[in-house]
């Protein structure tokens, strides 16, 4: 039972993170390694607003998501946008950004374990296992957000633009889509998703200034396993890896050390059979 719950929660977190990551990769070809750093910033923001300032938790979540989106857009405008053509430089710039956020958080909050209060207290038991209402709530919210993202991508003009830009940049540009504005919007959307992840998952995890590293590795594994740019693939791969992680943690004695290696071995095995990931499209070689 514990395995199922942990798997679902981890999987949901990874799904949200990896969808944001593959959105911005698809549209702007930016590999944003600072993605999970925004998730960390959001979680700390909520901690600060609700604890230090004593605001309502829901209000502070909203403010946190807005702040993170703003910070993300500023970071994009000033650090990433000017060097867009140089892929490698962008990657290093995002790593430097992530390190910068980590250090800022470290200075502001010190290296102590922090936690955010649950929205709803209490739990019920099924077969001798505690299930917190917070866990159910988190799972529900995640599904809702995933649904909203899916609707946005599939049913709106913006979603159409994002999808076509991911498919073929040049042609979309010729069709009159403003490439740089769309990249900006997608960046905002992607960072916003990271912020939302921090907001809904934050209460279930312990906050530390290096909490971004582990989800980032898992997120990249999910994205590769599911196939880059495939929302459905990311979604399914996230739950596969989430459950794999939960199984390893609960069933093996040294599980907490081995959870990432096992998840990554799964990813590599799948890649050996299908080099483009579970739901990726095999591209013709670009010239």
């Amino acid at each position, binding site marked *: 039972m514990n395995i199922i719950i942990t798997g679902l929660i981890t999987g949901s977190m990874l799904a949200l993170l990896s969808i944001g990551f593959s959105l911005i*990769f698809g549209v702007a070809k930016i*590999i944003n390694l600072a993605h999970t750093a925004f998730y960390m910033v959001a979680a700390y923001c909520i901690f600060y607003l609700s604890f230090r300032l004593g605001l309502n938790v829901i209000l502070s979540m909203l403010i946190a998501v807005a702040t993170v989106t703003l910070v993300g857009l500023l970071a994009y405008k*000033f*650090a990433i946008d*000017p*060097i867009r*053509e*140089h892929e*490698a*430089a962008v*990657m*290093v*710039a995002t*790593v*430097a*950004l992530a*390190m*910068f956020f*980590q*250090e*800022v958080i470290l*200075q502001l909050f010190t290296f102590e374990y922090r936690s955010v209060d649950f929205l709803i207290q209490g739990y019920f038991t099924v077969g001798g296992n505690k299930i917190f209402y917070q866990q159910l709530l988190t799972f529900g919210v995640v599904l809702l957000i995933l649904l909203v993202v899916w609707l946005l991508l599939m049913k709106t003009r913006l979603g159409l633009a994002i999808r076509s830009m991911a498919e073929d940049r040049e042609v979309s540009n010729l069709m009159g889509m403003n490439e740089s504005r769309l990249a900006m919007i997608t960046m905002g959307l992607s960072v916003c998703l990271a912020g939302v992840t921090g907001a809904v998952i934050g209460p279930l995890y312990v906050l530390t200034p290096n909490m971004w*590293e582990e989800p980032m*590795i898992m997120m*990249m*594994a999910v*994205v*590769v396993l599911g196939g*880059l740019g495939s929302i459905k693939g990311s979604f399914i791969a996230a739950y596969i890896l989430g459950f794999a992680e939960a199984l390893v943690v609960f069933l093996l004695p*040294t599980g907490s*050390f*081995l959870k*990432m*290696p*096992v998840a*990554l*071995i799964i*990813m*590599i095995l799948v*890649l*050996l059979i299908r*080099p*483009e*990931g579970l739901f990726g499209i095999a*591209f013709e*070689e670009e*010239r």
Partner: protein
Amino acid sequence: MGFVLFYFRKLVTLLRNEVLVLPSRIIVGLFLIVILGLPLVTQDPYVFRIVILTSLFAILAASWDLLSGFTGQFNFGHALFFGVGAYGSAILNTHVHIPPWGSVPLGAVVAVLAGLVIGIPCLRLKHIYLALTTFAFPIILFGIIVALPDLTGGELGMSGLERFTSSLMGNYYLHVIIMLVLCFIMWKITDSNTGIIFHAIREDELAVKASGINTTRYKLLAFTLSGFFAGISGGLYAHYMRIAGPSTLAVSMSFTIVIWAIFGGVATIYGPVAGVFILVPLLEVFRIWPEYRMMIFSVFVLVILLYMPEGLIPWVRDKIEKECPRCKVRNVAPRKSCRICTADLD
């Protein structure tokens, strides 16, 4: 006596006509003089330690460049080779009692094998998939190492390795000279035919394939060469620090290598070396504000990349030198005409 004079004159001519005409070559010459003459100025163990570590990291960054900068196969898990080299030579040294002279090359051979093991499956992948997959390998190895505490010391690592020599000067010259020799070899490799093929694979793999070159074989060669040099660097690091710990496989290690290399400028070999020799001592300088050390470091990297996305060294080189449009020979920037063919430099 006449012979000596002859060679001395030849040397002077060479210096005047080939080295002193270009500022970049003068800088390399000055670098050699400074790094080899440093013990004459100071005997401070702390300075020696920084220079030795910087040299080891310079080998590492250059080996990353050999693989990723030249062939464009973006390896995000370069710490794997470093860690395999370190652990390989550490295990050979503590369990099999092979002295450092043997264990470092053998550790590098183990790293080459690791390069083959990950290279063969990974070369089916392209671009970003390759980067994200290679990223996974050090983490997997980290898990294995922690799971086998008897052989590898688990989380604490293996300590108590032998050093090459116990003398301060001996250690300094050993590591610095190994660094210079290895970097020179790497530079020569990239300057050879093989290096040209590496370049071509990065620029247009399909065209290279169409020219009848087995690109997979060359990419695998790049993986093994790079693994070899990174493995040597790892083995030397383990023996110098006298400990091979899991930190050699950390995610931040893989990231740092990429930061060094891209900061310095990829596909040049001297770029990453210069990047390491700028960034690592700089990080030591920032110790005067210990709390803000990493913050200043990341801002510094960001700002430099913002203005020089190609990397620092190619940018500097373009400022102080220009290429002759006719014969492609480099000239000092203020010159009006080419020093070889006297064509006008715009």
